[in-house]
């Protein structure tokens, strides 16, 4: 099913390239577009002659964790960048709260309630924790519109405490925090600033077991509090711990689209490693013995 859809949207990608004004029919999406915060329909992205993504259908529901899995180069980053406003998609439609959108800048995405926590966290390492927390959302006071540093420090401390991180000195540069703490600062920031959707780009990739656990706990907590969470990872075990819905990307296309009750962690791992390829690999390793 997904293969057929992929090829048809490939054609669509070419058509759209010539006629960028072409609007997708929205009739079939109307009945469930309302309860998904973000909905992608046949979304594709070409960089010159390179097709990074084709025919992506994805729906992010409030209060759910949607996991996007894929190996390096599968198109996960491109997908995030489209939703985060760093790149514009070249085909298909992206519906945000039911409205077709194309973001020209990350600011537009943030204003639409989409917060992204990148692999590199989008934190300036030499800046203090509180300055990073309020970056581009500074609280100002008085006729001179000076920064209300005391209030921002207090809020930063409180918000981090809510996530279970006790950071008495928020004046410390972010670079001096541990990886898990940095990740949590970025997540806490996104939640505090009223995100409806939280996109997490490989939040556990560089972390140890315990810190990964802490971060996964906050991923689940964010979804419980009503946010739509997009969790990008290449670790099927991490994904299965928190995910409600799973999408596997392979070479820029969707290879799997299943909800939690349709799949087991073994199947997910198998699919992720590319089932047949894994069997072949096993065979080759036996040959080598």
């Amino acid at each position, binding site marked *: 099913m997904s293969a057929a859809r992929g090829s048809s949207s490939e054609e669509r990608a070419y058509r759209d390239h010539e006629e960028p004004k072409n609007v997708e029919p929205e009739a079939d999406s109307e009945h469930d577009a309302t309860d998904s915060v973000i909905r992608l329909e046949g979304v594709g992205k070409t960089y010159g002659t390179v097709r990074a993504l084709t025919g992506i259908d994805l729906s992010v529901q409030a209060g759910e964790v949607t996991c996007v899995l894929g190996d390096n180069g599968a198109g996960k980053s491109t997908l995030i960048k489209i939703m*985060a406003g*760093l790149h514009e998609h070249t085909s298909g439609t992206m519906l945000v709260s039911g409205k077709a959108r194309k973001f020209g800048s*990350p*600011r537009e995405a*943030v204003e639409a309630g989409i917060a*992204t926590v*990148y692999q*590199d*966290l*989008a*934190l*300036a*390492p*030499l*800046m203090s924790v509180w*300055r*990073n927390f*309020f*970056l*581009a*959302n*500074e609280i*100002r006071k008085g006729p001179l*519109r*000076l*920064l209300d*540093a005391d209030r921002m420090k207090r809020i930063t401390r409180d918000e981090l405490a809510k996530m*279970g*991180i*006790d*950071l*008495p*000195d928020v*004046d*410390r540069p972010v670079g*001096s*925090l*541990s990886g*898990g*703490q940095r990740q*949590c600062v970025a997540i806490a920031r996104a939640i505090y600033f009223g995100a409806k959707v939280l996109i997490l780009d490989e939040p556990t990739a560089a972390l*140890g*077991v*315990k*810190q990964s656990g*802490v971060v996964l706990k906050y991923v689940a907590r964010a979804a419980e509090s009503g946010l739509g969470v997009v969790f990008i990872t290449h670790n099927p075990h991490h994904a299965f711990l928190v995910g409600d819905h799973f999408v596997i990307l392979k070479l820029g296309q969707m290879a799997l689209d299943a909800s939690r009750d349709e799949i087991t962690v073994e199947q997910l791992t198998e699919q992720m490693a590319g089932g047949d390829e894994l069997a072949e690999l096993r065979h080759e390793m036996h040959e080598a013995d």
Partner: protein
Amino acid sequence: MSSATTTPDRRPDTTTDTRTAPRSPIAALLGKPEVGALIGAIAICVLFLSVAPAFRGLANVGTILYQSSAIGIMAVPVALLMIGGEFDLSAGVAVTSSALAASMLAWEFNFNVWVGILLALAISLAVGFANGWLLYRTRLPSFLVTLGTYFVLQGANLAVPRLIDDNVTSPKIDDMAGFDSAHAVFASSHTFFKSDSFEGITINISVLFWVLLTVVAAVVLTRTRAGNWIFAAGGDAEAARASGVPVVRTKIGLFLFVGFAAWLLGMHTLLNFATVQSNQGVGNEFIYIIAAVVGGCLLTGGFGSVIGASIGALIYGMTNLGITYAGWNVDWLKTFLGIMLVLATLINMWVRRQAERR
């Protein structure tokens, strides 16, 4: 999962991480970028107080401050720009360009001096904007873009006066309309504490400009949203953009501020002497950068202090006159500056590491 039982988790729990304990007040103090420069300034002051008798004369305070202001007025915006992650190698000649533009335009069209001054402001801001805009459009490093501007301006500084007047010195404008009032605004000086036994301390208005620029820039950097954006743009431009900081606008704003300060210092130079020479200002861009680096600014951006840069300028002023007062050969000034630059950078690095360790 089985590995968890064989290797006990040695990672500290994030909730009880001892690394997040509050820093000691000493560490917090050492963590401030301007501390190294302050220690350096005190050391240099003590050095010249002991070897140069004239340095001890109170009347010379005015001269030292004047020398410092001539660097400090530019070191402040150059430091902000460096914290924002960019260089401006054209900063030195831009001062002369502004002064030449004001005097040549006023002289050539027989304008009131003030008209020339306002036109020069427009030109200086345009040069600053061009630097920022080229940087954004070409995505070249600012080192290259402003190196280009530097040579373009230096060439124009020589060629235009030669073309118009066949001279490398701008015509004297002290008899033109508006000169006196402009002189009062940009180059007047006052003598304080004058008595029968004491000649007084003469403070030029440029010192006031320098102090004002330092205070305003320091407040903007540490206490306003724009300052937060400058730190972020220099610390990690991609991260800043992803967070919603208008990085391009911030950087163009910084280049405009350099343009404004170049105009201010250019007007002071012009009105103080009524004339400027085409080759003035060449090499000063490095002295501004030295002042900023001595003051704790990182070459890679994202960290530094305006007050530190002003202390750096003060160090330059003290050294410049201290060498003369001590009776040493002034030719050694640049050598001294070079040694100081490397030493200051090493000290700043060491101080920061100490602060991080506590």
